[in-house]
Structures are given as C-alpha cells and as structure tokens.
C-alpha cells in the first residue's frame, strides 16, 4: 500500500514533504509571511473555486464571507472564547449567512448572480466600516489574540507565537480544505455540480435538483471562506473593513483564472505564484498591472481553465485516445 502510494502519487508525497520541511528552508521572516498568506489565500481561492469553477456560479461575495468569518472570530475570541471553538463557529456563521443570501441570489443566473453577490460583498464591508459598537468602524478590531496553545501531555504545549507554528496551523487547514474539495469534486455529488455548470436544463431533466446543488456548493464554499477569514484575523491580530473588500475577491479571482478554474491544483498554484511574481516585479511599480492584464487576457482566450487546466486537459485527451476499456472501468470508479 505504502509503496504503491509512492509509485503512483510520488509527486504529491514529494510536495507534502517539501511543505513540511519548509520552515527549515525559509529563514527570512518576510518571505515566511508571504508563504503563510499564500496558504491562507489558497484556502479562500480553493473554496471560491467550488462555487465559481465547479458549479459555474460566479460569486463575487467571497471576500465578504471571508470578512464575516474574520469579524466573527475577532469578536468571539476578544470576548474570551477559545480560538478552537470560535474558529468552526466563524465558519458556520459565514455558511449560515451564505445560506440566507444564497436563497434569493442563486435564483438569478450568470452576470445577475455575479452582480447581486458583489453587492452583498460591498454591503459587508460598508457595515463593517460603520457599525462602530460591534466592528470598531474603519479602525477595525485590533489585538485579536493568537490561537490558544494546544496542551500536550508530558511534552508541554504547542503555542502559536512563532511563525513556524502558525505556518503548520494554516498548512493543516489547507490540507483539510484540499481533502474536502477533493472528495466533493471526485464524487457523484461533484459531478452533479459540474452538470449544473455545463447544462442546467439537461441536469434538471435527468433529475438533478439544480437549485439545491447550487445552495449546497455556495454554503460549503462560504464555510471555508469564513474559516480562512477566522484564521487570518487571529494570525494578523487586527482586521478592518478592508478584510472584506472587493479588491480581495478580485485578487482571488485572478489567482483562480490564471492558476486554473475547476482544477484542484490551480487555485494553490495561483495563490502562490502570483503574489511571488508581484514581489519580484516590485521595481515596475504600478506598471505590473499591465503585465497581469495582458496575461489574464491571453489565459482566458487560449487556456480557459488556466495553466493547470490546460495541463490536465492535455493529459486527459492523450489518455482518452490511447485508453482501453479496462482503463474505462478504472475511470468510472475514480469519478
């Protein structure tokens, strides 16, 4: 079993080992911070991918739900609740609001859905900026505590004061998100999401409850957006209405489009490569945007599923042409 795993999935095992050893390789605090943010934004982009990429509903409220989770966690932990209880609650809070917002907005389609969710995102940051008593207005909330230490018998405890520990925390949640997304996408349920994206009328005709599917996908996506927001609040220590801003949503959208819509690796590739690219192109100042603009247009026209999508499509096509019936059985079993 172990050897088989190594042979078939060696690339993933290698990546995991690399990810676990990363704190030994990166010594620069600033670089480390970029990596932590990369993991955090990977969670956000992966979950955005579920509703936008796999289910085909372009939600632009994602940073709004990220912000909801961040504020929920900040308020709960500042009033004394343990991080480990507040975190799932902040995810559930975002999911619940997502459910309530999804019921009316998911009845609209295409650009109408994009616009109505975008409005919701703007509303969240406006409320955050003006509801002084709860959100602290435009100053936001400062002094959000870091996650409570986890006691371990005999050894002591794991505290989250160091960057290393914080990194392992976000990495763990990234892997959890990846596991959930992987299971959803490679299942009959995930196929029904893709059916909704591809042809809603046909999906209905073959018996898929398309509205329920869209609501479920939206709620799960927003749960993870809220979770990512909660971790962000705790690690940054301060949040502001900017935490829920539209700019953040569009950043993730760019990560997703360039990395690869409707792939599992694309959002992570996008969330790491693009911020790093931005850092290296610092000397170009605002002219960087021209490069990204051109890149975005080229990718959308020639690689509609981003770099990773282009890669997998090519792989699948090759396999389809040379594949035999025996492999077909395996193919069905995998989906």
């Amino acid at each position, binding site marked *: 079993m172990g050897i088989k795993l190594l042979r078939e999935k060696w690339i993933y095992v290698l990546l995991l080992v690399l990810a676990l050893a990363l704190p030994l390789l990166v010594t620069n605090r600033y670089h480390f911070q970029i990596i932590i943010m990369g993991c955090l934004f990977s969670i956000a982009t992966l979950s955005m991918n579920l509703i936008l990429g796999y289910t085909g509903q372009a939600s632009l409220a994602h940073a709004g739900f990220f912000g909801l989770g961040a504020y929920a966690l900040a308020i709960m932990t500042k009033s004394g609740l343990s991080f480990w209880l507040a975190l799932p609650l902040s995810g559930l809070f975002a999911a619940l609001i997502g459910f309530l917002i999804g019921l009316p907005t998911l009845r609209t389609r295409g650009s109408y859905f994009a616009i109505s969710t975008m409005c919701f995102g703007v509303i969240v940051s406006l409320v955050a900026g003006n509801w002084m008593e709860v959100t602290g207005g435009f100053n936001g909330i400062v002094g959000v505590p870091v996650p409570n230490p986890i006691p371990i018998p005999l050894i002591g405890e794991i505290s989250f004061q160091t960057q290393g520990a914080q990194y392992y925390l976000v990495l763990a949640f990234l892997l959890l998100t990846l596991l959930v997304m992987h299971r*959803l996408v490679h299942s*009959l349920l995930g196929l029904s999401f893709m059916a909704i994206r591809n042809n809603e009328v046909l999906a209905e005709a073959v018996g898929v*409850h398309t509205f329920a599917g869209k609501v479920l996908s939206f709620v799960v996506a927003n749960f993870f957006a809220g979770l990512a927001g909660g971790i962000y609040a705790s690690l940054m220590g301060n949040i502001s209405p900017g935490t829920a801003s539209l700019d953040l949503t569009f950043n993730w959208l760019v990560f997703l489009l360039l990395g690869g819509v409707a792939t599992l690796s694309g959002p992570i590739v996008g969330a790491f490569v693009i911020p790093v690219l931005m850092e290296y192109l610092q000397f170009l100042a605002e002219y960087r945007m021209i490069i990204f603009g051109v890149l975005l247009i080229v990718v959308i026209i020639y690689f509609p599923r981003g770099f990773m999508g282009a890669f997998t499509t090519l792989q699948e096509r090759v396999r389809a042409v040379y594949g035999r019936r025996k492999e*077909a059985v395996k193919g069905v079993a995998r989906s």
Partner: protein
Amino acid sequence: MLLEAENLSKHFAGLAAVSNVSLHVKEGEILAIVGPNGAGKSVLFGLISGLLRPTSGHIRMQDKEITGWKPHRIAHQGIARTFQTTALFDQLRVVDNLAIGYRQRTAGGFWSTLLHTRRWEEDKNRTTAKVMKILSFIGLAEKALHFVSNLSQAEQKRLSIGVALISEPKMILLDEPTGGLILEDTDQITDLIRKIHEVAGVTVCLIEHKMRMVMGLADRMIVLNFGSVIAEGTPAEISQNPKVIEAYLGEEHLA
C-alpha cells in the same frame, strides 16, 4: 394507463402553441407523435417533462398529478427525455455524462460523500456497474473516456439516449432521435429504440419526421397540426386518414 394528459394548453404571449391536447400513453407501447414543423410536438414534450408550465390542463403519471412539477421531480417519477438539439454535458467525458444520468438513483449527500460512508461506496460501485452496462447497450464502450466533443453526431445521439435510459425510467421521451442523421445511422438508432423497448422494457414516446421509419416502428401514432390532435391510430390507419394526408403526408404519399 402510464401517462395521461387532459386538455393541455400552452400559450406564448397569446399564441397557442398547444391547445386542448388530450392524450394517453399505454404501458409498454411505442407511441409516435408526428406533425409538420411548428405543430407543437416539442412544446408538448416540454410540458410533459416539466420544462414548461401548461397554461391550462392536467398531466397525470400513473394516476399521480404531476402538473406544474419541476423537471427534476418529474424525472424522479420515471419520465426521462432527450432533446431535439442533442443536449449533453460537453465539458465532461462519456462516462461522466452517464454517471450524472444515474445520479437520481443514488442517495450520496454531502456528509456521506465527505466521510466516504459505506453507502457512498455502494452507490459508487452500483453507478460504475450501471455505466458499464449502458455503455455496451448503446455501443459506446470503446469511447468511454472520450470527451463528448470528440464523438460523431450519431454517437452523441446514442449517448443522449443512454443518459436518459440509465436512470431506469418507466417512459422515455425521444425528441427526433434521428434528426440530422444519414440513413445508415438512422437504422442503428431505430434498432436501439427497439432494444430499449424490448430488452429494457421501457415505454417509448417519440417525435419523428422520418415517416417510413416511424411507420415501421410505432404501435400507435398521434398526429398534431397547429397545436391540436388531428388524428390518432395505428400506422396503417394514419396512412389512410384523409386529414393527415392533407396536413402532412400529402406529397410523400402521392410520390
């Protein structure tokens, strides 16, 4: 009686596409609905499958009122359909298209999918077996992992019938299953429809333009013109009916 429609009407902005149509489908028969272009045949299928809401009238499936139901609920009642312009999930592979068609027979919800419960496992295995069975039934086993866009027109037609058939429906509505196909492919589809009827034991209701094919296939025919039923009967009766000859068969019969 498997399906009954009573005084069905559908108006689009005052224009009657279907007016006062009553019909029934008997269990185990092949019923053909024919008529000139714009006679309201596809609209009728839209009404039965729930895609369109009737302006008035009733539809009953095995004595159960299904008028105004959403398409997915009607599909669960055992009515499957294909579309005139072949509708498939063209971003997905052949096997995925079939698996989605079988989705309504599986129960895997969010938690069972997430936790890979035993039920999820069973559903997956059952789906795999069923997909393989249908693949060989429609003769597409060799193309299982192909994307829909790599299939020929005839293969796409066969797949769309497979997607409808895999849900184990009581009745299948085929909207021009041989539309746009050459003669040889038409014969293959006709054979497939016979197989669906005889081997799978599914009641078939089809819309078709190719009269010769329908005459040899159908047990019973209904002729629509301007949204109303103008004749009903066996193919032999229909071919002798003067109203039908006038409305639709005229030229072909003179030739």
